[in-house]
């Protein structure tokens, strides 16, 4: 069986006595080391699916398993990176990165060493003693990435991590996250509503549609790690996604009778 196994998973909420289906009938298998993008417009249940796999808000239908075990709560083996960074503003950058190591029973000195190593990896070693508010959005998200990597997780969940960043910073961080993935070999599940971002990053793109949230299709991106945002192959994959999202102009629209 695959590493992450999702079978007929669904999630319903009851609000003011009315039942609302956020996610239904999701079947998905993810292998170790894959970079998966969950792509879709708002309300398509992509974050719901991510939270169900990460264990924050469990699915109430079907099965969600990691490594053969049902997901019941967030695990320290899998780390989630949020759009608004989730850094603790009262801790310095280095202390933020050490946060996850503190409950692992690692001594102070080793903690500092590990934190510094990952701080270097995200190229922020000069900001070890800064507070989060002194950093730009892109730098904050780098700290969050370093903090996640420091606990050496199996899976990293990213919930629209670059959503709050400007386009140029976002592209830079996309390259960085690809580099880091190559060197650290993590399984990554990445939520985004940006089609190009999904194609650029993912091994496979899970295209989702709303009302109710469900998986419309899964596209393998055959671009390996030589991604060029302007190449023909890149545009071809993007085109297929537009197709799945019903966003393409149909050829035979104009008829006059």
């Amino acid at each position, binding site marked *: 069986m695959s590493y992450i196994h999702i079978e007929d998973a669904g999630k319903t909420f009851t609000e003011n006595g009315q039942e609302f289906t956020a996610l239904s009938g999701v079947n998905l298998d993810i292998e170790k080391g894959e970079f998966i993008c969950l792509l879709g417009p708002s309300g398509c249940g992509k974050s719901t699916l991510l939270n169900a796999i*990460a264990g*924050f808000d469990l699915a109430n239908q079907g099965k969600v398993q990691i490594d053969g075990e049902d997901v019941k*709560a*967030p695990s*320290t083996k*899998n*780390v*989630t990176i*949020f759009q*608004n960074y*989730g850094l*603790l*503003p*009262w*801790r*310095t950058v280095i202390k933020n990165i050490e*946060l*996850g190591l*503190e*409950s*692992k029973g690692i001594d102070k000195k080793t903690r500092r060493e590990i934190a510094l190593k990952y701080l270097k990896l995200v190229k922020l070693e000069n900001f070890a003693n800064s*507070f*989060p*508010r002194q950093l730009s959005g892109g730098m904050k998200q780098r700290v969050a990435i370093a903090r996640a990597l420091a*606990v050496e997780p199996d899976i990293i969940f990213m919930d629209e991590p670059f959503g709050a960043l400007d386009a140029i910073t976002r592209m830079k961080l996309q390259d960085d996250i690809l580099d880091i993935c190559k060197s650290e070999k993590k399984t990554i599940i990445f939520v985004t509503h940006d089609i190009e971002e999904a194609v650029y990053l993912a091994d496979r793109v899970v295209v989702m549609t709303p009302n109710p949230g469900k998986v419309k299709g899964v596209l393998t991106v055959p671009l390996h790690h030589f991604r060029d945002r302007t190449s023909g192959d890149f545009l071809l994959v993007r085109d297929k996604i537009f197709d799945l999202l019903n966003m393409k102009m149909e050829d035979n629209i104009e008829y006059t009778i």
Partner: protein
Amino acid sequence: MKKILSVRYVIVSILILIVIWQILFLVSDYSEALFPSPLMAFEALIEMITSGQLFESIVTSMGRFIVGYGLSVIIAVVLGLILGSLPKVFNYINPTLQLLRPISPTAWMPFVVLLFGIGDLPAIVIIFIAAFFPVLLSTVSAVMKIDDIYFRVSENFGIKQPKLMWKVILPAAFPQIANSIHLALGSAWIFLVAGEMVGAQSGLGYQIIDARNNVRADILLATILVIGLIGLLLDFLIGLLEKRILRAWGGEN
């Protein structure tokens, strides 16, 4: 530079007060015994300082204040952190708190004197009540308002109670808690005087009653000034402490 400027503001501001006071003294036709001039109040102040009476009163009052305010803040913050983390329990306690909160601490005075007699305790109890409700309610609301993301991050990294309390909840809620502690200091100081006027035979509040009984308006005004000055000083000191902790915890400036 900023400090020098603020000292200048303080001096000018107080000078304006003294000038207005002096003018009022010159134009009003109350007897000097009832409405003394700034100079007379100043002389009374010197008299109190040299006799050691002022120092004694300040020490007595400060002792009561530190005990009452300190205990109140500590208990209110600890209780607030716990109640804020247990919103379902707080729902049952909140209505009672809201009922007790608007009651002036001085309303409890007769009761407090009956129970605790005359001495240190009534003043301490009144100060305690004055600081308790604002700090408690503010702490509870601060804890309840903590962004859910901090809890998600803590859960993800395996931080559980009791570590969660001092690693996440307290620092996340601290700016609002500190603000309420700061504000409560002012009201606690106000009620110290009220408490000592009724329930004590010593301290700055009693000194006011004593001055009235002896028809020493100059001592009365001098004492009032001293109470104001100490209040100002306490406010400045706690502001300094607040800023220091906030800075250590990455707050603004």
